[in-house]
């Protein structure tokens, strides 16, 4: 087995593993479902996740020590991760090979030459390093990037087409916006192979910095060679193996070794005989500008005040999300929570969480199959960085040992009386109250009787204790016997509404259990009432799960809506004393 075959097996394995972890990110205990699969393992292996979160939070989140393992190996071996592990890199590798593999040697040498613009990735990295209050690496870090793309774009596309039935139809707001950078990153391989790896990838840049210390690296055994350039034509990293070797650019694809007809290229501890450049081509001024830019961006973004008085009430975070400032220090925008959410309500934020909160999870109760399920705690358990804390179910519901602290509230429902059917249009409804999963219910109703406007008070011809013959020609058979309609004598003595149990074109029958107090006589008038149960929300009980908003029959702008008022995670959003 040659080293190239070994590399290909490794790449195939890790790409397969990555895709497998994406597929199993679905609720259930079958082997192809979540069970105990370490679905975040590749993200944990990514040291940029560890390092960037250490810079923002000052601590290494459990699981992220794996990244140190990767870095340690990088210190020994060089950028093995890029060439052997990274699934995004493998994707670029495949596309690049497909696009350019059959070109002539000189064309490929030209494509794979080192370009000064390869320093851009270091500039991006330093820019991210400067942003110590807002975690933004997930925008370009290849593992979260690819998770986001597969979770929110590729699997939903396949699911909608029924290719992977377990996924079903999933919808994600701003999907195209997420898709464009992904398609661009993949498509740019058509111009230059591994475009993303060479020019953009901040993780590759981080490895590039650490490969300075590598004990082993590629190098030529003699300075002079035939200069056939075959090694250059196959070079994935554009690291110039035939000349002065650029250690920080080499991704250890190893194509150069077997390609050399004279066996002059070695993977060894000594520097290349043709010389090597251990550091990336970036000077102090560029470093400084990148760092300062990063340091400025988050404070600039904060000027809009979204973390303070100008917080967006529609920014409803998943249950267990830490307070907003801490959240923005942790969220990678990887989309794991959005993928696992069984009801599809966790959505990538567009601008609602500010520009810095782009693609962070927010709840949208118009999308998906239900609100935030009462007995579900999945999102926090798949968050790789603790932006959403893994809750115990008792903790979420405020039961057992968590009785004292109460349930986790993600927001609060508000009835819009101007749109609610019973409030605004005198039509019975209360779907919201029925669906409220909290026990005892957070949505309560008040009963009101309202005169039916289309039927004015009717003239009584004759009647007994429970049946009235009326003179006017305004009734229609079965119109009023549904259970919501009542009648009441228009007289001072009998003001109690009586339930209509049957009606004909000219008669009304009320329930025998509640007959009229006084026998009706000719000339009396009877009015028809509709009983309305009008919903109101008890803020002491509402947890903001949004089931009511999801089920509300006023489908455009819902008549009951959640805002982040009263959310547990922000003391400043408290509503009640």
């Amino acid at each position, binding site marked *: 087995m040659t080293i190239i075959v070994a590399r290909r097996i490794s790449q195939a394995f890790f790409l397969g593993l990555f895709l497998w972890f994406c597929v199993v990110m679905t609720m259930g205990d079958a082997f192809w479902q979540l069970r105990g699969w370490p679905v975040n393992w590749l993200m944990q292996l990514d040291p940029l996740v560890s390092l960037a979160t*250490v810079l923002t939070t000052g601590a290494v989140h459990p699981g992220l*020590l794996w990244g140190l393992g990767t*870095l340690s190996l990088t210190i020994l071996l060089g950028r093995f991760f890029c060439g052997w592990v990274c699934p995004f890199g493998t994707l670029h590798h495949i596309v690049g090979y497909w696009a350019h593999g059959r070109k002539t040697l000189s064309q490929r040498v030209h494509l794979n030459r080192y370009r000064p613009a390869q320093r851009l990735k270091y500039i991006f990295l330093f820019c991210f390093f400067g942003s110590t209050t807002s975690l933004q690496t997930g925008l370009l870090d290849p593992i979260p990037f690819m998770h986001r793309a597969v979770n929110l774009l590729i699997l939903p596309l396949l699911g909608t087409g029924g290719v992977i039935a377990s996924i079903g139809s999933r919808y994600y707001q701003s999907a195209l916006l997420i898709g464009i950078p992904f398609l661009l990153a993949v498509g740019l391989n058509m111009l230059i192979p591994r475009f993303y790896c060479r020019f953009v990838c901040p993780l590759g840049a981080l490895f590039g910095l650490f490969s300075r210390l590598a*004990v082993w690296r590629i190098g030529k055994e*003699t300075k002079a060679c035939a200069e056939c350039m075959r090694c250059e034509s196959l070079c994935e990293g554009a690291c110039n193996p035939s000349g002065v070797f650029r250690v920080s650019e080499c991704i250890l694809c190893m194509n150069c070794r077997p390609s050399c007809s004279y066996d002059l290229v070695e993977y060894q501890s000594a520097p290349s005989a043709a010389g090597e450049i251990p550091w990336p081509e970036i000077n102090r001024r560029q470093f400084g500008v990148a760092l300062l830019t990063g340091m400025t961006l988050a404070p600039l973004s904060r000027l809009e005040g979204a973390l303070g008085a100008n917080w967006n009430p529609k920014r409803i975070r998943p249950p267990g999300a830490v307070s907003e400032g801490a959240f923005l220090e942790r969220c990678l925008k990887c989309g794991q929570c959005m993928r696992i959410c069984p009801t599809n309500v966790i959505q990538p934020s567009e601008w609602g969480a500010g520009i810095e909160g782009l693609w962070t999870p927010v709840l949208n109760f118009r999308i998906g199959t239900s609100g935030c399920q009462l007995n579900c705690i999945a999102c926090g358990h798949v968050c790789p960085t603790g932006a959403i804390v893994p809750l115990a179910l008792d903790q979420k519901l405020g039961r057992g040992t968590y009785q004292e602290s109460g349930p986790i509230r993600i927001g609060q429902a508000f009835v819009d009386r101007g749109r609610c059917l019973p409030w605004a249009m005198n039509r019975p409804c209360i779907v919201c109250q029925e669906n409220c999963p909290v026990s005892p219910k957070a949505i309560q109703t008040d009963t009101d009787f309202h005169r039916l406007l289309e039927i004015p008070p009717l003239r009584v011809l004759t009647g007994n204790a429970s049946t009235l013959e009326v003179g006017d020609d305004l009734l229609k058979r079965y119109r009023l016997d549904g259970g919501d309609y009542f009648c009441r004598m228009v007289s001072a003595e009998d003001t109690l509404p009586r339930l209509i149990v049957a009606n004909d074109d000219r008669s009304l029958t009320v329930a025998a259990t509640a007959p009229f107090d006084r026998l009706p006589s000719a000339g009396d008038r009877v009015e028809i009432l509709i009983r309305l149960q009008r919903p109101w929300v008890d803020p002491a009980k509402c947890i903001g799960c949004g089931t009511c908003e999801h089920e509300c029959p006023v489908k455009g702008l819902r008549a009951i809506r959640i805002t982040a008022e009263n959310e547990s995670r922000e003391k400043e959003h*408290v509503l009640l*004393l």
Partner: protein
Amino acid sequence: MTNDSDTGRVMGRRQWLQQIGKAGGAICLLWSLGLWLREKDGRKSALPVTSVRFSNYAVPGMAGKLVAVTGGEDRSKAIGLALQALGGIEKFIRPGDQVLLKVNAAFASPPLIGATTHPALVAELIRLCLKAGASGVLVADNPINDPAGCFSLTGIDAATRAAGGSVVLPKTGDFKPLFLQGAKRLDGWPVFYEPFKKVTKLIGVAPLKDHHRSGASMTMKNWYGLLGGRRNILHQDIHRTIQELAHMVTPTFVVLDGTVAMMQNGPTGGSLSDLKQTGTMIVGTDQVAVDAFGAVLLEKDIQTLGFIRQAEAAGLGTADYRSLNPILIST
């Protein structure tokens, strides 16, 4: 290994060991850092914030004093007479005292509207304090409208500076959680503590106003301006909150300026038609009694002012102000 020294690619054992050493060192450093920074339970928990409490600013032997000066429109004269009747400001302010006047500068409206403490009264109190030897007089409030705008438009800023005092505007870091044992609403609430750090005497100076939620805004309600945070939710339990405010602060004395009373549309008013000339300056060391007296001028039934009942029940003062034998002076 061939000897190819001209290219320098042969590595001595020593060089190789150096390289291994560097890499090993880097890996060790990396792991020590990583393990040291490992997230442990409570590691990132916020630093304990020490809560604060207000000192007792009362002067011994002066409890239960109450005086009212009636018939005047000149606030400077009225406050002077009232304090004289209590034995002079020297009874309260000693040389070297650092005095804080808690004014009501809640709204960005001119003094004529009567929604805020009158600048003439502030100026005279500063003058008297300085005359008594106070080392400095601070004037503070956490207004509802923009702080700088409020102090400027109410005339309090100019009056303070002219009289030799200084205004303290609230800043974000100036608020500390309050320690108030037994308080249901205010224990732990952020309070405007910064200006109190060096203060030895505290005088509350409030206008006399109708208040739509609580019934009346007088000297007890005036301490609301020391609260920070989401204080607007306290309106859900306003009477208890006002009672706890009186519990929170024991002032040196309070001044209730009833020269003009805002009889309706309080606490902002906005029209001269909301005001009534009541011509009474009330000064006392019992804020419950002072407010009970003020309620009469506002034509409020004291039974409807829950905070007065509650404060008396909590032992914070006397609602039956007449029992204190108030000194009445008419000019």
